[in-house]
Protein backbone atom coordinates (compact mmCIF):
# COMPACT_ATOMS: atom_id res chain seq x y z
CA UNK A 1 0.00 0.00 0.00
CA UNK A 2 1.34 3.38 -1.00
CA UNK A 3 2.37 5.67 1.80
CA UNK A 4 -0.62 7.96 2.25
CA UNK A 5 1.51 11.03 2.57
CA UNK A 6 3.53 10.72 -0.59
CA UNK A 7 2.85 13.48 -3.05
CA UNK A 8 2.17 12.94 -6.67
CA UNK A 9 4.76 14.18 -9.15
CA UNK A 10 2.47 16.96 -10.28
CA UNK A 11 2.10 18.25 -6.76
CA UNK A 12 5.85 18.13 -6.23
CA UNK A 13 6.30 20.20 -9.37
CA UNK A 14 3.69 22.68 -8.20
CA UNK A 15 5.30 22.92 -4.80
CA UNK A 16 8.73 23.46 -6.32
CA UNK A 17 7.36 26.18 -8.57
CA UNK A 18 5.73 27.95 -5.64
CA UNK A 19 8.95 27.70 -3.64
CA UNK A 20 11.00 29.11 -6.50
CA UNK A 21 8.52 31.94 -6.91
CA UNK A 22 8.63 32.68 -3.22
CA UNK A 23 12.42 32.72 -3.26
CA UNK A 24 12.40 35.25 -6.07
CA UNK A 25 10.06 37.67 -4.30
CA UNK A 26 12.66 39.89 -2.59
CA UNK A 27 14.37 40.46 -5.91
CA UNK A 28 11.29 41.39 -7.81
CA UNK A 29 9.00 43.34 -5.53
CA UNK A 30 9.11 46.65 -3.66
CA UNK A 31 10.66 46.40 -0.24
CA UNK A 32 7.49 47.36 1.60
CA UNK A 33 5.75 44.37 0.06
CA UNK A 34 8.61 42.12 1.13
CA UNK A 35 8.18 43.50 4.63
CA UNK A 36 4.47 42.79 4.56
CA UNK A 37 5.14 39.26 3.36
CA UNK A 38 7.51 38.82 6.26
CA UNK A 39 4.70 39.75 8.61
CA UNK A 40 2.45 37.36 6.72
CA UNK A 41 4.80 34.51 7.59
CA UNK A 42 4.94 35.60 11.24
CA UNK A 43 1.15 35.75 11.45
CA UNK A 44 1.03 32.45 9.62
CA UNK A 45 3.14 30.73 12.27
CA UNK A 46 0.94 31.99 15.10
CA UNK A 47 -2.18 31.34 13.02
CA UNK A 48 -1.07 27.78 12.36
CA UNK A 49 -1.17 27.18 16.09
CA UNK A 50 -4.73 28.50 16.23
CA UNK A 51 -5.61 26.53 13.11
CA UNK A 52 -4.39 23.23 14.49
CA UNK A 53 -6.62 23.66 17.50
CA UNK A 54 -9.61 24.90 15.56
CA UNK A 55 -9.41 22.68 12.51
CA UNK A 56 -8.26 19.46 14.11
CA UNK A 57 -9.62 19.67 17.64
CA UNK A 58 -12.53 22.08 17.21
CA UNK A 59 -11.14 24.37 19.91
CA UNK A 60 -11.55 28.11 19.48
CA UNK A 61 -8.39 29.63 20.93
CA UNK A 62 -8.57 33.33 21.67
CA UNK A 63 -5.46 33.39 23.83
CA UNK A 64 -2.82 33.15 21.13
CA UNK A 65 -1.86 36.81 21.59
CA UNK A 66 -0.71 36.02 25.11
CA UNK A 67 1.63 33.28 23.93
CA UNK A 68 2.80 35.50 21.10
CA UNK A 69 3.48 38.17 23.71
CA UNK A 70 5.39 35.79 25.94
CA UNK A 71 7.62 34.86 23.02
CA UNK A 72 8.14 38.50 22.14
CA UNK A 73 8.95 39.55 25.69
CA UNK A 74 11.24 36.60 26.25
CA UNK A 75 13.26 37.66 23.23
CA UNK A 76 13.10 41.35 24.10
CA UNK A 77 13.90 41.01 27.76
CA UNK A 78 16.42 38.27 27.21
CA UNK A 79 18.36 40.11 24.53
CA UNK A 80 18.04 43.69 25.75
CA UNK A 81 18.09 43.40 29.52
CA UNK A 82 19.92 40.14 30.06
CA UNK A 83 22.14 40.16 27.00
CA UNK A 84 21.17 36.64 25.96
CA UNK A 85 21.86 35.34 22.47
CA UNK A 86 18.66 35.46 20.39
CA UNK A 87 18.26 31.68 20.23
CA UNK A 88 18.12 31.54 24.02
CA UNK A 89 15.33 34.09 24.04
CA UNK A 90 13.37 32.16 21.44
CA UNK A 91 13.71 28.88 23.29
CA UNK A 92 12.87 30.49 26.61
CA UNK A 93 9.74 32.02 25.11
CA UNK A 94 8.60 28.70 23.70
CA UNK A 95 9.32 26.94 26.96
CA UNK A 96 7.46 29.46 29.09
CA UNK A 97 4.52 29.55 26.71
CA UNK A 98 4.35 25.79 26.54
CA UNK A 99 4.52 25.46 30.30
CA UNK A 100 1.84 28.08 30.83
CA UNK A 101 -0.39 26.46 28.23
CA UNK A 102 -0.01 23.14 29.98
CA UNK A 103 -0.68 24.63 33.38
CA UNK A 104 -3.77 26.55 32.34
CA UNK A 105 -4.89 24.03 29.77
CA UNK A 106 -5.00 21.22 32.28
CA UNK A 107 -8.08 22.49 34.14
CA UNK A 108 -9.70 24.49 31.36
CA UNK A 109 -9.48 22.00 28.52
CA UNK A 110 -12.10 19.92 30.26
CA UNK A 111 -14.52 22.58 29.11
CA UNK A 112 -16.22 22.37 25.75
CA UNK A 113 -17.44 24.58 22.96
CA UNK A 114 -18.11 28.17 23.82
CA UNK A 115 -17.17 27.67 27.46
CA UNK A 116 -13.70 26.79 26.35
CA UNK A 117 -13.63 29.71 23.94
CA UNK A 118 -14.58 31.98 26.81
CA UNK A 119 -11.88 30.48 29.00
CA UNK A 120 -9.26 31.28 26.36
CA UNK A 121 -10.69 34.77 26.01
CA UNK A 122 -10.42 35.18 29.76
CA UNK A 123 -6.83 34.05 29.59
CA UNK A 124 -6.20 36.61 26.87
CA UNK A 125 -7.74 39.43 28.89
CA UNK A 126 -5.98 38.46 32.10
CA UNK A 127 -2.66 37.95 30.31
CA UNK A 128 -2.98 41.30 28.58
CA UNK A 129 -3.58 42.97 31.90
CA UNK A 130 -0.51 41.35 33.40
CA UNK A 131 1.57 42.59 30.48
CA UNK A 132 0.43 46.08 31.48
CA UNK A 133 0.77 45.51 35.19
CA UNK A 134 4.21 43.94 35.17
CA UNK A 135 5.84 46.86 33.47
CA UNK A 136 9.12 46.16 35.30
CA UNK A 137 9.33 43.18 32.95
CA UNK A 138 7.50 44.29 29.84
CA UNK A 139 8.00 48.03 29.92
CA UNK A 140 4.20 48.44 29.90
CA UNK A 141 3.04 50.82 27.23
CA UNK A 142 6.61 52.14 26.96
CA UNK A 143 7.66 48.74 25.75
CA UNK A 144 11.16 47.47 25.22
CA UNK A 145 13.10 48.93 22.33
CA UNK A 146 16.40 48.28 20.68
CA UNK A 147 16.02 44.52 20.30
CA UNK A 148 19.02 43.40 18.26
CA UNK A 149 18.64 41.80 14.86
CA UNK A 150 18.51 38.04 14.83
CA UNK A 151 22.01 36.79 14.25
CA UNK A 152 22.45 33.10 13.68
CA UNK A 153 26.21 33.28 13.24
CA UNK A 154 26.20 32.71 9.50
CA UNK A 155 23.58 35.26 8.52
CA UNK A 156 22.34 38.43 10.15
CA UNK A 157 18.64 38.88 9.57
CA UNK A 158 18.57 42.63 9.83
CA UNK A 159 16.82 43.62 6.62
CA UNK A 160 13.31 42.84 5.38
CA UNK A 161 14.87 40.90 2.51
CA UNK A 162 16.84 38.52 4.71
CA UNK A 163 14.21 38.24 7.40
CA UNK A 164 11.73 37.26 4.72
CA UNK A 165 13.61 34.05 4.05
CA UNK A 166 13.92 33.27 7.72
CA UNK A 167 10.24 33.80 8.47
CA UNK A 168 8.99 31.85 5.50
CA UNK A 169 11.52 29.12 6.12
CA UNK A 170 10.24 28.71 9.67
CA UNK A 171 6.65 28.74 8.50
CA UNK A 172 7.35 26.12 5.84
CA UNK A 173 9.02 23.90 8.41
CA UNK A 174 6.12 24.34 10.81
CA UNK A 175 3.66 23.47 8.06
CA UNK A 176 5.51 20.29 7.19
CA UNK A 177 5.47 19.24 10.83
CA UNK A 178 1.81 20.08 11.13
CA UNK A 179 1.16 17.97 8.08
CA UNK A 180 2.99 15.05 9.65
CA UNK A 181 1.01 15.50 12.81
CA UNK A 182 -2.35 15.59 11.10
CA UNK A 183 -1.61 12.37 9.26
CA UNK A 184 -0.52 10.62 12.43
CA UNK A 185 -2.27 8.78 15.20
CA UNK A 186 -2.66 11.94 17.25
CA UNK A 187 -3.96 13.89 14.28
CA UNK A 188 -6.62 11.32 13.49
CA UNK A 189 -7.53 11.07 17.15
CA UNK A 190 -7.89 14.84 17.43
CA UNK A 191 -10.28 14.93 14.50
CA UNK A 192 -12.22 12.03 15.94
CA UNK A 193 -12.66 13.76 19.26
CA UNK A 194 -13.75 16.91 17.48
CA UNK A 195 -16.49 15.07 15.57
CA UNK A 196 -17.76 12.63 18.19
CA UNK A 197 -16.11 12.84 21.60
CA UNK A 198 -18.10 9.99 23.13
CA UNK A 199 -17.13 7.62 20.38
CA UNK A 200 -13.52 8.74 20.61
CA UNK A 201 -13.46 7.95 24.31
CA UNK A 202 -14.70 4.46 23.57
CA UNK A 203 -11.68 3.95 21.33
CA UNK A 204 -9.40 4.67 24.31
CA UNK A 205 -8.41 8.10 23.07
CA UNK A 206 -7.34 10.15 26.08
CA UNK A 207 -8.97 13.31 24.89
CA UNK A 208 -7.93 15.51 27.72
CA UNK A 209 -4.26 14.68 27.41
CA UNK A 210 -4.44 15.07 23.66
CA UNK A 211 -6.06 18.49 23.94
CA UNK A 212 -3.45 19.63 26.43
CA UNK A 213 -0.65 18.49 24.13
CA UNK A 214 -2.16 20.24 21.16
CA UNK A 215 -2.69 23.39 23.21
CA UNK A 216 0.93 23.36 24.31
CA UNK A 217 2.05 22.91 20.73
CA UNK A 218 -0.17 25.75 19.60
CA UNK A 219 1.19 28.02 22.31
CA UNK A 220 4.76 27.23 21.35
CA UNK A 221 4.04 28.19 17.77
CA UNK A 222 2.58 31.45 19.07
CA UNK A 223 5.71 32.13 21.11
CA UNK A 224 7.96 31.36 18.17
CA UNK A 225 6.06 33.85 16.05
CA UNK A 226 6.25 36.41 18.84
CA UNK A 227 10.02 36.06 19.08
CA UNK A 228 10.41 36.52 15.35
CA UNK A 229 8.16 39.56 15.57
CA UNK A 230 10.27 41.08 18.32
CA UNK A 231 13.48 40.67 16.40
CA UNK A 232 12.00 41.96 13.18
CA UNK A 233 10.33 45.05 14.62
CA UNK A 234 13.10 45.63 17.21
CA UNK A 235 10.48 46.92 19.64
CA UNK A 236 7.66 45.33 21.58
CA UNK A 237 4.92 46.83 23.71
CA UNK A 238 1.64 45.73 25.19
CA UNK A 239 -0.42 47.20 22.38
CA UNK A 240 0.63 44.31 20.14
CA UNK A 241 -0.71 41.60 22.42
CA UNK A 242 -4.36 42.43 23.00
CA UNK A 243 -7.55 40.65 22.09
CA UNK A 244 -7.49 42.23 18.64
CA UNK A 245 -4.28 40.37 17.91
CA UNK A 246 -5.86 37.10 19.01
CA UNK A 247 -8.70 37.78 16.63
CA UNK A 248 -6.22 38.45 13.84
CA UNK A 249 -4.58 35.11 14.51
CA UNK A 250 -7.97 33.48 14.46
CA UNK A 251 -8.73 35.03 11.09
CA UNK A 252 -5.66 33.37 9.58
CA UNK A 253 -6.96 29.80 9.68
CA UNK A 254 -10.62 30.70 9.37
CA UNK A 255 -10.12 32.73 6.21
CA UNK A 256 -8.20 29.97 4.54
CA UNK A 257 -10.37 27.15 5.81
CA UNK A 258 -9.47 25.89 9.26
CA UNK A 259 -8.94 22.28 8.27
CA UNK A 260 -6.51 22.90 5.45
CA UNK A 261 -2.86 23.77 5.79
CA UNK A 262 -2.58 25.61 2.50
CA UNK A 263 -5.41 27.69 3.92
CA UNK A 264 -3.04 28.94 6.62
CA UNK A 265 -0.76 30.44 4.00
CA UNK A 266 -3.65 31.97 2.13
CA UNK A 267 -5.19 33.36 5.30
CA UNK A 268 -1.88 34.82 6.45
CA UNK A 269 -1.32 36.49 3.10
CA UNK A 270 -4.83 37.87 3.27
CA UNK A 271 -4.55 39.45 6.70
CA UNK A 272 -1.12 40.88 5.94
CA UNK A 273 -1.68 42.16 2.44
CA UNK A 274 -5.32 43.04 2.00
CA UNK A 275 -5.47 45.85 4.57
CA UNK A 276 -2.37 47.36 2.93
CA UNK A 277 -3.89 47.17 -0.49
CA UNK A 278 -7.10 48.70 0.78
CA UNK A 279 -5.42 51.54 2.63
CA UNK A 280 -5.09 53.21 -0.75
CA UNK A 281 -8.81 53.94 -0.42
CA UNK A 282 -8.19 56.24 2.52
CA UNK A 283 -9.99 56.39 5.78
CA UNK A 284 -12.69 53.90 4.91
CA UNK A 285 -10.20 51.13 4.37
CA UNK A 286 -11.21 49.41 7.59
CA UNK A 287 -14.79 49.31 6.43
CA UNK A 288 -13.61 47.78 3.20
CA UNK A 289 -11.50 45.22 5.04
CA UNK A 290 -14.49 44.18 7.11
CA UNK A 291 -16.56 43.88 3.98
CA UNK A 292 -13.77 41.91 2.32
CA UNK A 293 -13.98 39.38 5.15
CA UNK A 294 -17.71 39.14 4.63
CA UNK A 295 -17.22 38.78 0.89
CA UNK A 296 -14.75 35.94 1.38
CA UNK A 297 -17.27 33.99 3.39
CA UNK A 298 -20.06 34.62 0.97
CA UNK A 299 -17.94 33.64 -2.01
CA UNK A 300 -16.50 30.55 -0.37
CA UNK A 301 -18.03 29.42 2.90
CA UNK A 302 -15.38 26.72 3.30
CA UNK A 303 -12.58 29.28 3.25
CA UNK A 304 -10.31 30.52 0.52
CA UNK A 305 -8.52 27.20 0.21
CA UNK A 306 -11.92 25.70 -0.55
CA UNK A 307 -12.29 28.16 -3.40
CA UNK A 308 -9.02 26.96 -4.88
CA UNK A 309 -10.14 23.37 -4.63
CA UNK A 310 -13.39 24.27 -6.28
CA UNK A 311 -11.73 26.12 -9.13
CA UNK A 312 -9.45 23.18 -9.68
CA UNK A 313 -12.13 20.56 -9.20
CA UNK A 314 -14.71 19.21 -11.54
CA UNK A 315 -17.68 21.19 -12.64
CA UNK A 316 -20.94 20.27 -11.03
CA UNK A 317 -22.61 17.48 -12.94
CA UNK A 318 -26.08 18.29 -14.13
CA UNK A 319 -28.87 16.79 -12.12
CA UNK A 320 -27.51 17.60 -8.72
CA UNK A 321 -29.61 19.72 -6.46
CA UNK A 322 -29.13 22.06 -3.61
CA UNK A 323 -30.17 21.35 -0.07
CA UNK A 324 -32.63 23.86 1.25
CA UNK A 325 -31.50 23.99 4.82
CA UNK A 326 -28.18 23.46 6.43
CA UNK A 327 -27.24 19.84 6.70
CA UNK A 328 -26.08 20.02 10.22
CA UNK A 329 -26.44 22.98 12.46
CA UNK A 330 -23.55 23.96 14.63
CA UNK A 331 -23.14 21.84 17.64
CA UNK A 332 -23.81 23.86 20.69
CA UNK A 333 -23.26 23.71 24.37
CA UNK A 334 -26.39 22.62 26.08
Amino acid at each position, binding site marked *: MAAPCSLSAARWALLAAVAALAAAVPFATPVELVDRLTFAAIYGIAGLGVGLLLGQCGILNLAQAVFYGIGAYASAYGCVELGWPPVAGILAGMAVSGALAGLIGWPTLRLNGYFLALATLALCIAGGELFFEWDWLTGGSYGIGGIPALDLGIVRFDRPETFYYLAWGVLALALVMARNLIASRDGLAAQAMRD*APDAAAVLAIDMHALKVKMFVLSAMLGALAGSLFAHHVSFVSVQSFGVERSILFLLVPVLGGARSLSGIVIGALFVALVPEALSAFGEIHHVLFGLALVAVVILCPEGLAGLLTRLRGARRPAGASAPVTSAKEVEHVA
Partner: protein
Amino acid sequence: MSPDPAFFAVDGVARSFGGFQVLADVSLAIGQGEVVGLLGPNGSGKTTLFNIATGFLPPSAGAVRFCGRDISRLSVQERSRLGVVRTFQTPKVFEGLTVRDNVALGFYRQMRAGMVESLFGAPRARREVADARAASEPLLARFGLKPLADTAAARLTAGQRRNLEVARALAGAPRLLMLDEPSTGLTRDEAMALADMLLDLSAEGMTLFVVSHDMEFLRIVGRAHVLSFGRIIATGTMAEIQADPQVRQIYFGS
Protein backbone atom coordinates in the same frame (compact mmCIF):
# COMPACT_ATOMS: atom_id res chain seq x y z
CA MET B 1 -23.17 -22.19 29.99
CA SER B 2 -22.71 -20.98 33.52
CA PRO B 3 -21.58 -17.40 33.85
CA ASP B 4 -18.11 -16.87 35.16
CA PRO B 5 -18.77 -13.98 37.51
CA ALA B 6 -15.13 -13.03 37.47
CA PHE B 7 -15.31 -11.74 33.90
CA PHE B 8 -17.93 -9.02 33.84
CA ALA B 9 -20.47 -8.23 36.51
CA VAL B 10 -22.88 -5.50 37.44
CA ASP B 11 -23.47 -5.50 41.18
CA GLY B 12 -26.50 -3.86 42.68
CA VAL B 13 -26.31 -0.90 40.34
CA ALA B 14 -28.83 1.87 40.83
CA ARG B 15 -29.14 5.21 39.16
CA SER B 16 -31.52 8.09 39.43
CA PHE B 17 -31.66 11.48 37.80
CA GLY B 18 -32.82 14.15 40.18
CA GLY B 19 -35.23 11.87 42.02
CA PHE B 20 -36.29 9.95 38.92
CA GLN B 21 -35.21 6.37 39.48
CA VAL B 22 -34.07 4.77 36.25
CA LEU B 23 -32.17 1.73 37.52
CA ALA B 24 -32.84 0.04 40.81
CA ASP B 25 -30.53 -2.64 42.17
CA VAL B 26 -29.57 -4.31 38.91
CA SER B 27 -27.18 -7.24 39.19
CA LEU B 28 -26.03 -9.51 36.43
CA ALA B 29 -22.92 -11.38 35.41
CA ILE B 30 -21.50 -12.39 32.06
CA GLY B 31 -18.92 -15.07 31.48
CA GLN B 32 -16.12 -14.86 29.00
CA GLY B 33 -17.22 -15.78 25.50
CA GLU B 34 -20.89 -15.53 26.40
CA VAL B 35 -23.43 -13.71 24.31
CA VAL B 36 -26.00 -12.08 26.55
CA GLY B 37 -29.02 -10.06 25.55
CA LEU B 38 -30.72 -7.18 27.31
CA LEU B 39 -34.22 -6.22 26.43
CA GLY B 40 -37.12 -4.34 27.84
CA PRO B 41 -39.65 -1.68 27.02
CA ASN B 42 -38.52 1.70 25.80
CA GLY B 43 -37.15 3.73 28.63
CA SER B 44 -36.63 0.78 30.92
CA GLY B 45 -32.99 1.67 31.46
CA LYS B 46 -31.03 -0.49 29.02
CA THR B 47 -28.91 2.28 27.56
CA THR B 48 -28.44 3.78 31.00
CA LEU B 49 -27.03 0.46 32.17
CA PHE B 50 -24.64 0.49 29.21
CA ASN B 51 -23.64 4.04 30.07
CA ILE B 52 -22.82 3.00 33.59
CA ALA B 53 -20.96 -0.10 32.50
CA THR B 54 -18.76 1.82 30.08
CA GLY B 55 -18.07 4.81 32.27
CA PHE B 56 -20.26 7.52 30.75
CA LEU B 57 -22.31 7.76 33.91
CA PRO B 58 -21.41 7.03 37.50
CA PRO B 59 -23.89 4.76 39.26
CA SER B 60 -25.77 6.16 42.25
CA ALA B 61 -25.03 2.87 43.97
CA GLY B 62 -23.43 -0.45 43.14
CA ALA B 63 -20.34 -1.45 41.25
CA VAL B 64 -19.18 -2.68 37.87
CA ARG B 65 -16.55 -5.42 37.80
CA PHE B 66 -14.41 -6.57 34.93
CA CYS B 67 -11.96 -9.46 35.23
CA GLY B 68 -12.37 -9.42 38.93
CA ARG B 69 -11.51 -5.77 39.22
CA ASP B 70 -13.83 -2.95 40.27
CA ILE B 71 -13.84 -0.61 37.31
CA SER B 72 -16.59 1.69 38.56
CA ARG B 73 -14.23 4.60 38.95
CA LEU B 74 -12.32 4.23 35.72
CA SER B 75 -12.90 6.65 32.89
CA VAL B 76 -14.33 5.60 29.55
CA GLN B 77 -10.95 5.43 27.89
CA GLU B 78 -9.40 3.51 30.74
CA ARG B 79 -12.13 0.89 30.47
CA SER B 80 -11.66 0.86 26.74
CA ARG B 81 -7.97 0.18 27.23
CA LEU B 82 -8.94 -2.84 29.29
CA GLY B 83 -11.00 -4.03 26.35
CA VAL B 84 -14.50 -2.80 27.20
CA VAL B 85 -15.95 -1.25 24.05
CA ARG B 86 -19.45 -0.25 23.11
CA THR B 87 -21.52 1.12 20.27
CA PHE B 88 -24.22 3.74 20.59
CA GLN B 89 -27.91 3.54 20.00
CA THR B 90 -27.64 6.49 17.64
CA PRO B 91 -24.44 5.80 15.69
CA LYS B 92 -21.64 8.27 16.34
CA VAL B 93 -19.21 8.45 13.45
CA PHE B 94 -16.31 10.82 12.89
CA GLU B 95 -17.89 12.84 10.13
CA GLY B 96 -14.79 14.73 9.06
CA LEU B 97 -12.75 11.58 8.54
CA THR B 98 -12.98 9.12 5.70
CA VAL B 99 -14.79 5.88 6.28
CA ARG B 100 -11.46 4.05 6.18
CA ASP B 101 -9.89 6.28 8.82
CA ASN B 102 -12.95 5.83 10.99
CA VAL B 103 -12.29 2.12 11.05
CA ALA B 104 -8.52 2.58 11.30
CA LEU B 105 -9.05 4.53 14.53
CA GLY B 106 -10.55 1.39 15.96
CA PHE B 107 -6.92 0.24 16.17
CA TYR B 108 -5.95 3.30 18.19
CA ARG B 109 -5.22 1.18 21.25
CA GLN B 110 -2.53 -0.65 19.34
CA MET B 111 -0.73 2.50 18.19
CA ARG B 112 2.20 3.78 20.20
CA ALA B 113 3.84 6.75 18.44
CA GLY B 114 4.14 9.88 20.56
CA MET B 115 3.45 13.39 19.44
CA VAL B 116 7.09 14.29 18.89
CA GLU B 117 7.58 11.27 16.66
CA SER B 118 4.47 12.26 14.77
CA LEU B 119 5.63 15.84 14.30
CA PHE B 120 8.89 14.73 12.76
CA GLY B 121 7.20 12.09 10.65
CA ALA B 122 9.17 9.26 12.26
CA PRO B 123 8.93 5.95 10.42
CA ARG B 124 7.09 4.27 13.26
CA ALA B 125 4.42 6.99 13.29
CA ARG B 126 3.84 6.61 9.58
CA ARG B 127 3.92 2.86 9.63
CA GLU B 128 1.39 2.55 12.41
CA VAL B 129 -1.18 4.59 10.58
CA ALA B 130 -0.54 2.76 7.32
CA ASP B 131 -0.84 -0.57 9.11
CA ALA B 132 -4.10 0.43 10.74
CA ARG B 133 -5.50 1.47 7.40
CA ALA B 134 -4.42 -1.79 5.84
CA ALA B 135 -5.93 -3.74 8.69
CA SER B 136 -9.20 -1.89 8.15
CA GLU B 137 -9.67 -3.24 4.66
CA PRO B 138 -11.14 -6.63 5.59
CA LEU B 139 -13.61 -4.98 7.96
CA LEU B 140 -14.62 -2.45 5.33
CA ALA B 141 -15.22 -5.26 2.91
CA ARG B 142 -17.07 -7.29 5.52
CA PHE B 143 -19.52 -4.47 6.23
CA GLY B 144 -20.06 -3.45 2.64
CA LEU B 145 -18.24 -0.16 3.10
CA LYS B 146 -15.43 -0.78 0.66
CA PRO B 147 -16.88 1.37 -2.13
CA LEU B 148 -17.30 4.20 0.37
CA ALA B 149 -13.87 3.84 1.98
CA ASP B 150 -12.56 7.18 0.75
CA THR B 151 -15.67 9.28 1.25
CA ALA B 152 -16.20 11.42 4.31
CA ALA B 153 -18.31 9.65 6.89
CA ALA B 154 -20.62 12.68 6.93
CA ARG B 155 -22.16 11.37 3.74
CA LEU B 156 -23.22 8.01 5.06
CA THR B 157 -26.83 6.98 5.44
CA ALA B 158 -28.34 5.78 8.65
CA GLY B 159 -27.71 2.13 7.84
CA GLN B 160 -24.18 2.73 6.64
CA ARG B 161 -23.39 4.59 9.83
CA ARG B 162 -24.57 1.66 11.88
CA ASN B 163 -22.34 -0.67 9.87
CA LEU B 164 -19.41 1.66 10.23
CA GLU B 165 -19.81 1.91 13.94
CA VAL B 166 -19.90 -1.80 14.46
CA ALA B 167 -16.90 -2.25 12.14
CA ARG B 168 -14.94 0.33 14.13
CA ALA B 169 -15.84 -1.28 17.42
CA LEU B 170 -14.65 -4.65 16.18
CA ALA B 171 -11.39 -3.24 14.87
CA GLY B 172 -9.59 -3.07 18.18
CA ALA B 173 -10.40 -6.67 19.11
CA PRO B 174 -12.36 -5.80 22.25
CA ARG B 175 -12.72 -8.34 25.02
CA LEU B 176 -16.19 -7.24 25.99
CA LEU B 177 -18.26 -5.68 23.24
CA MET B 178 -21.50 -3.99 24.20
CA LEU B 179 -23.79 -3.35 21.27
CA ASP B 180 -26.78 -1.01 21.61
CA GLU B 181 -29.38 -1.96 19.00
CA PRO B 182 -26.85 -3.04 16.37
CA SER B 183 -29.40 -4.28 13.85
CA THR B 184 -31.58 -1.17 13.75
CA GLY B 185 -31.48 0.39 10.31
CA LEU B 186 -29.85 -2.62 8.71
CA THR B 187 -31.54 -4.69 6.08
CA ARG B 188 -32.68 -8.11 7.17
CA ASP B 189 -29.84 -9.81 5.39
CA GLU B 190 -27.27 -7.47 6.84
CA ALA B 191 -28.70 -8.07 10.27
CA MET B 192 -28.53 -11.82 9.83
CA ALA B 193 -25.00 -11.65 8.47
CA LEU B 194 -23.98 -9.52 11.43
CA ALA B 195 -25.56 -12.05 13.75
CA ASP B 196 -23.54 -14.85 12.16
CA MET B 197 -20.38 -12.84 12.40
CA LEU B 198 -20.94 -12.09 16.06
CA LEU B 199 -21.51 -15.76 16.76
CA ASP B 200 -18.18 -16.54 15.12
CA LEU B 201 -16.43 -13.91 17.20
CA SER B 202 -17.96 -15.21 20.38
CA ALA B 203 -16.76 -18.68 19.47
CA GLU B 204 -13.30 -17.15 19.28
CA GLY B 205 -13.69 -15.84 22.81
CA MET B 206 -15.16 -12.35 22.46
CA THR B 207 -17.84 -11.58 25.00
CA LEU B 208 -20.95 -9.84 23.76
CA PHE B 209 -23.65 -7.92 25.56
CA VAL B 210 -26.41 -6.88 23.22
CA VAL B 211 -29.40 -4.59 23.57
CA SER B 212 -31.98 -5.14 20.89
CA HIS B 213 -35.70 -5.14 20.17
CA ASP B 214 -35.12 -7.42 17.20
CA MET B 215 -36.18 -10.97 18.10
CA GLU B 216 -34.78 -12.48 14.95
CA PHE B 217 -31.41 -10.93 15.64
CA LEU B 218 -31.50 -11.92 19.29
CA ARG B 219 -31.25 -15.57 18.29
CA ILE B 220 -27.52 -15.16 18.85
CA VAL B 221 -27.83 -14.71 22.58
CA GLY B 222 -27.51 -17.63 24.93
CA ARG B 223 -29.23 -15.85 27.76
CA ALA B 224 -31.04 -12.59 28.09
CA HIS B 225 -32.20 -10.28 30.83
CA VAL B 226 -35.38 -8.26 30.66
CA LEU B 227 -35.47 -4.86 32.25
CA SER B 228 -38.63 -3.08 33.23
CA PHE B 229 -38.68 0.19 35.10
CA GLY B 230 -35.06 -0.32 35.98
CA ARG B 231 -35.39 -3.80 37.45
CA ILE B 232 -34.58 -7.17 35.97
CA ILE B 233 -37.88 -8.96 35.75
CA ALA B 234 -36.83 -12.04 33.83
CA THR B 235 -33.69 -13.94 32.93
CA GLY B 236 -33.29 -16.96 30.71
CA THR B 237 -32.96 -18.22 27.18
CA MET B 238 -34.84 -16.34 24.50
CA ALA B 239 -37.39 -19.12 24.36
CA GLU B 240 -37.98 -18.86 28.08
CA ILE B 241 -38.27 -15.13 27.89
CA GLN B 242 -40.66 -15.18 24.98
CA ALA B 243 -42.83 -17.55 26.98
CA ASP B 244 -42.79 -15.52 30.19
CA PRO B 245 -46.28 -14.13 30.69
CA GLN B 246 -45.17 -10.95 32.38
CA VAL B 247 -42.71 -10.20 29.62
CA ARG B 248 -45.31 -11.00 27.03
CA GLN B 249 -47.68 -8.54 28.56
CA ILE B 250 -45.41 -5.56 28.98
CA TYR B 251 -43.01 -6.11 26.14
CA PHE B 252 -44.46 -8.21 23.35
CA GLY B 253 -48.05 -7.21 23.87
CA SER B 254 -49.84 -10.51 23.64
